[in-house]
């Protein structure tokens, strides 16, 4: 008989989730990832001014708010037929890149490393309930030192974001046309200076630290793999003069990489707490989560740093728990390089803003890869207000529920088959789930089925 394990809260993520797993002979035979927060953003947005979507949707998520600002801006630009200038794109993408750095540094040190290193237990915050810590004392001590040092660097990543974005979290800078303000030379040099410190930290500490963890937790290169289907909407790509600096819209399945087609996206609610007419419905039989099931041509896909590193050819060591973490720190380095190139191409003091007017009726989509993966916003405008809004977040892909064809979600599949060393202390579950960088404040929104 299978043993049932429930972990709730899964701490060190953004938001609230539960893992329910069944273990037989120390192997996970079934698993569910359950998102436990519903706010209903898509319903709130109806009737509001389209311009307000940018700052409003940022409030979906405290750690990746810029991602939503970028996606909603792109959806608005599509609806309003505004084509941002290249300078506008560079500036906006610099802000977006700063959010990547903030997010990745915090996710690696504050969210991931406590799974693998022993932090000082005289702080109540760092008391743990297991003892699977394998690093030798001096290496553990070094990573603890870097855990605290990293706080300065992630703070500085938000500082450089605020130089162009006004404040963070929930910046004001990202907007239609690019950003709101101009990049004067004092701002450019300030960002360059901070970027230099962050780049050094990532190169000299963060990347070696990730490989150190990998060295002592080799088994994590062999679990948490899942389907192995990877997808990206692309980011830092398709610039008129600079070409693609990171990754284009691509999908990987069965050993081959193909272009990604937005028309393949769908979202299912068979196992989510929504009625057929899209109202919240917690008494629904079979349903177990507020998360929906994002699919690409009906198939679950993984999205995020590993998908991007794989699709862009930067890192193809493997698809596993540890590879996901390695890919995240390598991506952080890549992003510093991308920001560096964009900064070199900024013309100082250029204003990219115009006086915009809202069309009577229009629709648009904004698809962009962000820190956690593929993010889509879809907007419809009628009578100059938002008449429909739809958001599919990265965690809608990675932390999705089962779909109608009973295919398990990406992270659910990644859990199944894992060997659990001690079923009274199943540390493997949290480690695998955190490698996806779940964001459960993000993904839990009102659903409307649309023919996207």
């Amino acid at each position, binding site marked *: 008989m299978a043993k049932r394990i429930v972990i709730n*809260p899964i701490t060190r993520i953004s938001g609230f989730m539960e893992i329910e797993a069944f273990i037989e002979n120390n192997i996970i035979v079934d698993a569910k990832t359950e998102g436990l927060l519903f706010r209903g953003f898509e319903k709130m947005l109806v009737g509001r*001014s389209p311009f307000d979507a940018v700052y409003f949707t940022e409030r979906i998520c405290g750690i990746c708010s810029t991602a939503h600002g970028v996606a909603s801006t792109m959806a608005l630009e599509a609806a309003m037929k505004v084509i941002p200038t290249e300078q506008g794109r560079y500036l906006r993408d610099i802000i977006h890149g700063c959010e990547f750095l903030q997010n990745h540094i915090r996710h690696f040190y504050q969210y991931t490393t406590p799974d693998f290193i022993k932090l000082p237990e005289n702080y109540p915050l760092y008391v743990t309930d297991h003892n699977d810590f394998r690093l030798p004392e001096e290496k553990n001590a070094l990573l603890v030192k870097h855990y605290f040092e990293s*706080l300065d660097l992630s703070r500085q990543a938000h500082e450089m974001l605020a*130089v162009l974005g006004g404040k963070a979290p929930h910046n004001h800078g990202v907007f239609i046309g690019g950003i709101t*303000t101009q990049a004067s030379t004092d701002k450019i040099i300030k960002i360059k200076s901070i970027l230099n410190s962050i780049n050094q930290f990532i190169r000299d500490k963060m990347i070696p630290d990730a490989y150190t963890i990998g060295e002592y937790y080799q088994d994590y290169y062999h679990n948490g793999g899942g389907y192995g289907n990877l997808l990206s909407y692309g980011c830092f790509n398709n610039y008129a003069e600079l070409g693609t600096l990171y990754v284009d819209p691509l999908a990987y399945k069965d050993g081959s990489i193909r272009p990604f087609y937005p028309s393949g996206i769908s979202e299912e609610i068979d196992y989510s707490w929504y009625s057929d007419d899209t109202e919240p419905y917690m008494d629904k039989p079979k349903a177990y989560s507020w998360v929906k099931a994002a699919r690409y041509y009906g198939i679950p896909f993984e999205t995020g740093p590993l998908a991007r590193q794989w699709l862009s050819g930067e890192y193809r060591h493997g698809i596993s728990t540890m590879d996901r973490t390695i890919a995240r720190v390598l991506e952080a380095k890549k992003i510093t390089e991308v920001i560096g190139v964009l900064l070199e191409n900024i013309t100082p003091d250029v204003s990219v803003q115009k006086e915009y*007017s809202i069309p009577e009726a229009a629709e648009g989509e904004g698809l962009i890869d962000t820190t956690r993966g593929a993010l889509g916003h879809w907007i419809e405008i009628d009578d100059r207000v938002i008449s429909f809004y739809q958001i599919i977040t990265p965690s809608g892909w990675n932390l999705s529920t089962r779909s109608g064809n009973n295919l398990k979600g990406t992270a659910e599949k990644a859990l199944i088959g894992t060997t659990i060393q001690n079923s009274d202390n199943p540390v493997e579950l*949290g480690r695998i789930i955190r490698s996806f960088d779940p964001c459960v404040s993000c993904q839990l929104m009102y659903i409307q089925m649309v023919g996207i």
Partner: protein
Amino acid sequence: MIEKNPGICPMLNASSGTAKNLIEKIKSEIMRNSLVKRDLIWLELTGCSGNIISLLNGSNPDFKFLITNMVNLIYNNSLMAAEGEAALDALVNKTGSDYILAVEGAISTKNNGLYNIIGRWKGEPLTALKAVQLLGDRASHVIAVGACATHGGVSAARPNPAECVSVQSILKRKVIKLPGCPCHPDWFLGTLAHILLYGEPELDDRDRHLLFYSMLIHDRCPRRSYFDNGVFATRLGEKTCMFKLGCRGPVTRIDCPVRQWNSYVNWPIRDDTPCIGCAMFGFPDSMEPFISYDTTRKR
């Protein structure tokens, strides 16, 4: 403070004083071993968990100073090493002893609070609603951190699908309110420092810490002269008064113009965007539209 420093501009004083002075005081108390660390519980409830991220952006004091010298941080979902029921142990075992409670996020009341479950204790779901009821009454002080906790904020935006309410709506006791989206790290750390040193700070009639919330943005706005002279921006990116773009500075009480954000490098108006009133009760619904091109023109 002004009396102590005659001749110093009160606007400069307001930014360099406040939280920083309190922290200096704490440092000296620590040196004399007269400050006893208190226990702090930081609950993330129905919201975006952006206030804890903002807290991590604090500099002098920073997060390390907070947990090393000011408080024992007993519980925080985003940062604690423990998980599952072991993590909740710290919360449930806390109810009998002395602690300060900080809450970010609103409280979803729909379906008995089941729209926001923050953990599972002995097989039963622990909702945001139940957690506040469990911990709110016995805390020595309750601090509502950010717009969702102080008045519902974005989580309660119409039509409020999760039926979110403020912390105060659940608790029949004094709740110190630090509205803002997010809360600036100094507003929280300065308030906490005051509690540790002197007890409850001086609050206004809506329980906001007067140190930070006493003056309108408009009163200290560097673009005020443009307003007075009727020079208004018509698009973002201009350097004049953004009143006609929808700026909420004239109704928003907070010290952003002198404090600024993220190691004090910038703030929304300096970024050539209007204030959207995120530190004001009623945000977001009564502060919208955030951006409109000439509010004095009919659309």
